[in-house]
């Protein structure tokens, strides 16, 4: 097309230009059309959650249009938030996630600083090793961990099974390797002159880290924090394997195991519980989308 424009020369140029923009406009229209289709596909489940959560149980079991709410009601929300049980799940989830985020950030920021800046014997190997451990999945580790907990109980008398705080000990295995990896990348991009200047001025390594590196790497730290929070909020296998009594469950497992009672599915409440449980990551995402994306993709882009 551009060839044609050159060949026919100046007079036809405006015509050409119009057809080009015409083409582009159609390409855009098709893009929007298909984008809408994909958005419908991607947003159907969360929207259906919302629709169902606004229905009473009688409307759910009635043979009406399932995609429409005829008599919207907040009774599911009231019932769920009035229950002590759901609030306990929420509290457990929040406590676990916050503690895991703090532990993760302390461990990974200090370690990443040491690995990126203060090379020591084996530090390069360790950095690669950290990345490899990120690829070890939870589905491979839960059985030996299960056995190790039994061993700890038999030798020291500390019961690790069926306590929500046990999750605080094991979730960092999922978050620390990746966050360390992100932070190594961020710290490595900070110019060497900055920490040299600080050291010449007599700052200790710890001061260099807290006064220079952490403030400069704040975007990376936010991204890593969000990653750690999302992972610990969403983790499903460990709590399912290691906690059983209802007062020790975290949200994902709590909703799946307690709201489904035998064959009776109280779908209104299940959807409400799932939607409220998905709310914290969604809210963080809505406000900090760029950090969120940076955190969850950094490992692969840097890798």
């Amino acid at each position, binding site marked *: 097309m551009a060839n044609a424009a050159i060949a026919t020369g100046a007079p036809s140029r405006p015509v050409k230009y119009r057809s080009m923009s015409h083409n582009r406009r159609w390409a855009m229209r098709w893009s929007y059309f298909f984008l809408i289709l994909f958005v419908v596909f991607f947003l159907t489940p969360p929207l*259906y959650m919302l629709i169902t959560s606004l229905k009473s149980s009688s409307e759910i079991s009635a043979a009406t249009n399932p995609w429409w709410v005829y008599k919207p009601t907040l009774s599911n929300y009231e019932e769920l938030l009035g229950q002590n049980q759901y609030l306990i799940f929420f509290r457990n989830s929040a406590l676990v996630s916050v503690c895991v985020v703090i532990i993760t950030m302390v461990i990974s920021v200090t370690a990443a600083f040491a690995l990126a800046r203060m090379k020591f014997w084996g530090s390069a190997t360790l950095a690669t090793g950290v990345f490899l451990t990120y690829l070890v999945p939870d589905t491979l*580790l839960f059985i*030996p961990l299960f056995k190790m907990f039994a061993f700890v109980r038999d030798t020291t008398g500390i019961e690790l099974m069926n306590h929500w705080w046990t999750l605080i000990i094991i979730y960092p295995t999922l978050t620390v390797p990746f966050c360390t990896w992100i932070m190594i990348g961020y710290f490595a991009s900070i110019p060497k002159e900055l920490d040299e200047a600080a050291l010449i001025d007599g700052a200790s390594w710890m001061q260099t880290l807290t006064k220079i590196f952490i403030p400069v790497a704040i975007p990376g730290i936010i991204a890593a924090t969000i990653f750690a929070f999302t992972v610990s909020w969403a983790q499903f296998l460990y709590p399912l394997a290691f906690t059983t009594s209802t007062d020790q469950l975290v949200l994902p497992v709590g909703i799946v195991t307690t709201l489904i009672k035998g064959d009776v599915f109280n779908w209104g409440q299940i959807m409400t519980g799932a939607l409220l449980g998905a709310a914290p990551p969604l809210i963080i995402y*809505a406000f900090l989308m760029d950090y969120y994306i940076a955190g969850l993709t950094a490992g692969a882009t840097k890798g």
Partner: protein
Amino acid sequence: MADIAAPTATAAAGNRRSSLHKLVQRKSTIAFLMALPLILLIAILIVYPAGYAVYLAMLSKSMTKFVGLGTFEFILKRQVFWDVVYQSCLFAISAVIFKAIIGFIVAHLVHNIPLKGQRKWRGMLLVPWVIPPAMSTLAWLWLFDPSYSAFNWILAHFGIGAIPWTGEAGWARFCVILVNIWAGAPFFMIMYLAALKSVPEQLHEAAAIDGASWLQRIWYVNLPMMRNIIAITALFSLIVTFANFDIVRVLTAGGPLNATHIFGTWSFKVGIESGDIPQGAAVSLFMAPILAIAAAFILRDISRRGSEV
């Protein structure tokens, strides 16, 4: 004078060298101490359990005696195991392929529209990936419900009979793969979009001047430029999908008749629910070779890119 000066000078030099030496030593010591929590965490809670899993897999069912590879032999003879292998491969490979294709298409669509609208669309398209999978899978479970399926309600309007979504083996396999694609495609989209943004505009202009159609431009310009990201994203996703647990567990729990069990869910069923820890450990260890191969490829890519920089 000189006699006196010389020793002091050497002493000073020696002093300086030893203090320098000490400083270096101190720096590496501090560094090691700062990395120590990380090392301990990885050693105690990742490396040790991984090794322990190998040991556990070699015990007898009652865990009282060592049977070596006996448990593995036993598993290899079970038909269920081969069904799990088949389903795991089908699940992981088909899901990753479709996630990559959908991610690639959607990334191009988003890239096509004006820049100021892109953020909004991208925001909506990423929602499946933000919701914890265990919770979004509940929504799918409800959409697939045998008696109240909202999909079947729509199909009924087109005169199509009810589909047994999670009730029949073939459909159940389709459903777990579909949900996995739904949850994972946004990640591919965002990675590919980032890669697309880094393709220089001049290449497209040059291709357009040479008379390349839009399809040719995608095939001969974008695809080669994005090759690295496409490969590494797919490998990452392959590992995560292969080791998946929550989607299958919530949607079908491995049913109907073990048709949708993958390694993670089956080892949970055998190891935790049936209490046969050695067998559960052995099952989960069968994931290791595949994960190791994918990890080796990723690592090769990282080191190659590291040496380029």
